[in-house]
């Protein structure tokens, strides 16, 4: 049996003419770092579940992508984080939604799967559960980058309709 890892960093209106060479390079480097994290596990016979968590964590920490640090902003200027993980061997699953202070959303989703009787935990309760599980808590501003703030400012100045065209996600 062979191993395989596939990742995405989101889709949207990116075209060669609207993505700078530097943004493209940062994204490619981030994707390769995430592959490094997952491949190290799979190539040494490790579990798919551990590999997808490791790859997702690498992407959450990378401000080039809309997850964790570098997430887009809600209309009132803060970050809300959602994540889910699922193990195909027994269809266990864990998910979190609307979190604001948990640094590693995918780790919280996995903790929900492995250390709670539930699948989906939300908002303050999800952050409280993650904190009880020892998952690092940070101020919501830690997730905010100047680029995402500028994107929100542009959308709000244009009337504030959420980003249905996925220009920024």
């Amino acid at each position: 049996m062979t191993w395989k890892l596939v990742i995405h960093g989101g889709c949207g209106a990116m075209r060669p003419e609207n993505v700078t060479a530097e943004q493209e390079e940062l994204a490619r480097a981030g994707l390769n770092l995430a592959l490094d994290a997952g491949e190290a596990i799979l190539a040494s016979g490790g579990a798919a579940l551990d590999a997808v968590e490791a790859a997702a964590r690498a992407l959450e920490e990378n401000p080039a992508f809309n997850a964790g640090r570098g997430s887009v902003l809600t209309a009132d200027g803060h970050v809300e984080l959602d994540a889910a993980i699922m193990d195909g061997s027994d269809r266990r699953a864990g998910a979190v939604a609307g979190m604001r202070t948990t640094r590693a959303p995918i780790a919280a989703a996995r903790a929900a799967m492995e250390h709670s009787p539930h699948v989906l935990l939300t908002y303050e309760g999800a952050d409280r559960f993650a904190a009880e599980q020892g998952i690092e808590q940070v101020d919501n501003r830690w997730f905010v980058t100047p680029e995402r703030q500028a994107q929100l400012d542009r959308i709000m100045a244009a009337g504030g309709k959420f980003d249905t065209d996925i220009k920024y996600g």
Partner: protein
Amino acid sequence: TIGAVACDSRGHVAAATSTGGLTAKRWGRIGDSPLIGAGTYADDRAGAVSATGLGESFIRAVAAHELCAQIRIGGEGLRAALDAVLADVGALGGTGGLIAVGPNGESAWGFTTPGMYRASAGPEGRQVAIYAE
């Protein structure tokens, strides 16, 4: 939104998705990523799937589970099931992308937006891409 799907050397699959949602969202809006079966799903009988795009359409299409069901019940191949689900999402008015891997190590990706940050690794090597080929 970011996502990862994997098949390990024992033929087990897994999926992970994480997101900040959509810019300027309000009212506690949640998209497909944390909804098991919509933006994230994994089943050794079919495959593992992670989605990105306009979440409302992926929720209504129950996209990740539907892709697995077309394989498990419909006997579809991974590529055909992924393309069919993306077309269904489009029929519901949404655009976005999917990545998927099967328990045999087969993989596929597709997207209906101008670009998708995507990459894959296996014993045969790596691929990293952004725009439509």
